[in-house]
Structure formats: C-alpha cells, structure tokens
C-alpha cells in the first residue's frame, strides 16, 4: 500500500515542488466540520441521535486511522476499546459510584496499557500476527463481559441509570450528548492533525511505507507502532465511554463484536486511509446511507459492508479522500511543471 504523492513522469526538475495537500493547514477545514455539526444541531433537532452515532463512529474511525492508515497496521479489534470504555463507565458507576469523567480517564489509561502490552506482544513480529491478535483480544474481552456476571451483568447486560452530573449537565439528555460527541470528534481530529504533522507522524508514514528503510534511518518501528496504537486505543476508549452513556444499556454482543470493529475499519478505508478527514467522510456516507435505506440495511447491512469492502479495495484502494488528494497533488504538479 503506497500512498502519498507520486510524481508524474516528465515533471521539470527545476520546478518548485508544490506543497502536498498533506501539509496544507487543516484548521480551516476543521472549523468547517465544527460549524457543519453545530448547524446540524439547530437544523435537525429531531435527528440528534443520528448525529451522535455519526460523530462517535467518525471519531473511532479517525482514531483507528492513526494506526490502521497512517502507520499501516490495520486492526480488526477496535471494538475492544469501544467496549472497554463503555463498560468502564458502566461498571464503575454501578459499583463504586465513580464520576464518569474519572471513569473516562480510567478507561483511557486501561486502553493505553492494553495497547502497550498488546503491541509489545505482536509488533515485533513480521507478518499478519498483529491483525490476527486484534480479533483474538476483542473476542476474549467479549467472553469476559459475558462470563463475569457479577461485574458486567453477563449476556443480559448492564444498565447505566445514574451518573454524577458535570456542571449540572444531565448526561442522559441527547442535547448534552450531542455537544459532548462533537467535542470528542474535534478532539480526535485535532490530535490526529497535530500528531501526523509532527515528528511522530513522519515516522509513522516511514514505517508504513518500508519498515526496513525506516529502521535504517534510525527509527524504531516497534516504538512508533506502539505509540500510534496507544494513542489510537485511548482515543477510541474515550469515544466508547460516550457511547456507553448514549446507549445506557450495555451488552457484550453489539459492543465487543467483530462487526463493530469491521465497521470502524471499513469507514476509514472507504473514506481514505492516512487522510485526516477520510474516516469522517466515510462515516458520514455509511451512516447516512444506512439511515436512508434503513429497511434494507436492517437485513442486509453486512452484505452491503462486505460488498463495499471488496469493491473499494479492488477499484479505489486509496479511498475517497485519498483519491481526491492525489488528483489535487497531480494537478499542482502538472501546473508547476508547465511553469
């Protein structure tokens, strides 16, 4: 998987290379995203739940992309972190009356630790070991959630019905949840924008393109992958906390399931791996399509996801934003070559 600008043949060497869109400032577009969702709140007050699920999915996918896209280590177990976040809020609220913001910190720390150990275990090995282990670990967590009935309520589930209120805000109100979700999405986008434009971001891309060369350039691939994984896991778990409060009824089946992991990965792949706004675009497309064709999706959502994965990988491996970015870069190269 080689992404990034590839120069067309025949470009004059003297021409000043244009700034790749990768480096174009993301902040105006970020403000646009914030404004668009804020407008959603006032224009579609009856579709707040849809907006929340969209923003959370977009946030998870953007966090997934930090590892799966920018670092090139596709994970099919990110549902583990979503479930970890949701269950941490639920379990600590029910058993210890812990405030949800402390629970969120705890969940992020737990996710980061899990990712660190997990990375230690698999990032040192070449081949498909990492992606295989992601499924295994999500599955183990699901079995724990089903079997540890005293803590998690088993297969029946766990209900969150009482939470401490930050600044007197009722966390079960869809209005409050909407703004929290928007804040979460923006936080993830800002973190990913900062990380990918910084030193770690370049190292991540170097590891993705060619691990041996990256190592020759003095980069420690295991450390870089581990950092990307830790960040990705903690951010996903934070979104999982919000999702837990949003659902208020936690069950192992939808939370830890492979399908959720697949959906997170899929929207990032459709939108464009290794692009800042790709996962958001993918999440928006999938969520809105699912809403429009709800009756079809209810029966055949996996069929549609499956076909989409096959088609996108076969015919548009860069995803929507990746394809757009390449066109823009090519046009700029062509222009600068003409002088």
């Amino acid at each position, binding site marked *: *998987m080689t992404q990034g600008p590839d120069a067309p043949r025949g470009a004059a060497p003297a021409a000043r290379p244009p700034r790749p869109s990768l480096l174009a400032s993301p902040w105006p577009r970020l403000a646009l995203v914030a404004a668009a969702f804020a407008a959603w709140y006032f224009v579609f007050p009856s579709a707040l739940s849809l907006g929340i699920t969209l923003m959370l999915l977009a946030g998870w996918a953007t966090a997934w992309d930090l590892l799966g896209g920018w670092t*090139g280590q*596709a994970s*099919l177990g990110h549902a583990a972190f979503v479930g970890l976040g949701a269950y941490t809020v639920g379990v600590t609220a029910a058993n210890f009356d812990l405030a949800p913001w402390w629970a969120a910190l705890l969940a992020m720390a737990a996710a980061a630790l899990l990712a660190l150990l997990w990375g230690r*275990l*698999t*990032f*040192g*090995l*070449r*081949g*498909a*070991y990492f*992606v*295989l*282990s992601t*499924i*295994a*670990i999500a*599955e*183990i967590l699901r*079995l*724990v959630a*089903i*079997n540890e009935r005293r803590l998690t309520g088993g297969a029946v589930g766990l209900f969150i019905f009482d939470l401490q209120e930050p600044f007197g805000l009722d966390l079960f109100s869809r209005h409050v949840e909407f703004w929290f979700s928007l804040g979460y999405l923006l936080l993830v986008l800002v973190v990913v924008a900062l990380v990918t434009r910084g030193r770690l971001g370049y190292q991540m891309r170097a590891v993705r393109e060619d*691990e041996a060369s990256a*190592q020759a350039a003095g980069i420690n*691939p*295991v450390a870089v992958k581990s950092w990307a994984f830790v960040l990705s896991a903690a951010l996903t778990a934070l979104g999982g906390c919000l999702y837990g409060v949003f659902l208020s009824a936690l069950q192992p089946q939808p939370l830890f399931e*492979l399908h959720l992991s*697949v959906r997170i*990965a899929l929207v990032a*792949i459709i939108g464009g791996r290794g692009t800042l706004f790709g996962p958001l675009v993918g999440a928006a497309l999938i969520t809105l399509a699912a809403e429009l064709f709800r009756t079809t999706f209810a*029966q*055949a*959502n*996996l*069929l549609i*996801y*499956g*076909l*989409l*994965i*096959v088609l996108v*990988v*076969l015919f548009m*491996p860069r995803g929507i934003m990746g394809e757009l970015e390449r066109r823009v870069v090519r046009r700029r190269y062509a222009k600068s070559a003409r002088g």
Partner: protein
Amino acid sequence: MEGLAPFLQNLSGGLLIGGIYALIGVGLSLIFGVMRVINFAHGEFVMLGMYLAIVLFVQLGLDPYVSLLIAAPAGFLVGMVVQRLVIARLVDIPGDSTLLVTLGLGLVISNVLFLVFGAEPKSIYLPYATRTVMLGGIRLPVAQLIAGGVTLVLITGLWLLLTRTELGRAVRATAQNRLGAELVGIDTPRIHALVFGVGMALAMAAGVILAPLLFAIPTAGASYTLKAFVVTVLGGLGSVPGAIGGGLLLGVVEFMGASYLSSGYRDAYGLFAFLLVLLLRPEGLFGRTVKRV
C-alpha cells in the same frame, strides 16, 4: 471429575473435535503457505458446507456423509472461481488488501446465508449418528468417530497429494519460492487457484461433517475462522503438519478447559493459547523461525 476415565473421555473428545479443527486449519495454512494470503472468509466456507449438507438432507434426504462427495468438489470449484476473479488481482499488491477482500467476502456469505435460511439454528438429525460406542470405559459418539475417520482420510489424501505427486511438488515449489518455481516452468497462477480450491474444499468438507454434530447458525463462520487462525498460529503459519498438531491441541485444550476450569470460557482457552504462543514461540509450536523486526 477425577480419575483417569473422565480424563481419557475428555482427551478422546478433544482429539476428535480437534481433528475437525485441523481439517479447517490445514486449508487456511496451505493457502497462506503457498499464496501468502490470509483467508478471512475461511469459516464462512465451513458454514457454506454445513448449510449445503442440511439442504441436501432436507430436500433430497441425502446422508451428510454422502453429500461430502458433492460438497468437496463444489468447494473446490467455488474456491477456484473466487481466486481467479478476486484474489488473483490482489496477490501481488503488498499490504493488507487480500485480507480485507476476504473479510468482505466472508461478510457477504454469512449475510446471504442469513437472508436465505434465517437466524434460527438448524441441524441434521441422524438416528445412527447420535448413538455412542463404549470403548474401554470411554463413551465415543458415533458422529464424532465418523468425523475423526473422514478427517484422517482427507488429511492423508492431502499429504499424499503434496508429497507423492508431481502436482504436489509444484505446489511446494511455489510455496518455497514463487519466482524460482516460475523459472522452472510452473504455472504459479494455476497453482494458486488450485490451492485455494483445495483449501475451500477442505473447509466445506469440514462443514459437512460438522453438520450432524452442531447447530448451524449463519453468523458462526467468524468463530470458525478464528479457530482456524488459532490452529495455524499454534502450528506455525503456513505449515501443514503444524496445523494438524495445532488442531488436535486446540480441541484438547478446549475440552480440558471447559471441563476442569469453566465451560463459559470454552472458546477463550484457544485464544489464550494463541496469545501464549505469540508471546513465547511465535513461529508456532512445531514451526521454524519467524522473522522478527
């Protein structure tokens, strides 16, 4: 549960189920070894085999062990077609595209099964298969015995094919060095299609012999894929004999864990074993060395 008899009972049950896991895992391992493709749709092909056996049984009254003769060639053909149409286009692209495509295929298959057959579990009732045979104080269900026998025949056949025929030599050559194989005149795309077909035939055959043993649910494919991964990693990715050992081991670990520890975690023991192997011996219990970064 104490004493030798229950232990032997668990051991034999685990080995018999493990034989089926081995059958599933061998196909996955063979495909990986030759094509470097991890087939995420493997478990869904097992489910296809199960449902094919059920349909043939319900519609035509065909004994599932007879329908093996239909399921295995059908799996071979479907596998060849899938390989030619989809996977062959991606095999030379580095990265995870084949993994994602097979994952997508698996989702499509399991959803189609759900749309056709519904979510309720289905099974085959064979009066003779539900009987048990007593052997030195150990109860052996007939269905499991037959499954063990069929597995033994199929795996022996595969082993003979790989080691005793010219075609098997070509397959092994492709696995060892694709370019080298091409240089000596082996049509490696054909070998790839063939290997994928054989893998799918084994998966569907495993599904057929599982049909009288277990309930078929459209979504169960993912758990078989997972078991196949565990089997191959236990035995070493890409090693066919390793997958046999890994399968038997997984069956025994599951049976022992379920009866001596906690049955709720039955599916987790294999995964724990998988993580342990990754931690201690990533080349697999029977494998050679693995590349480290």
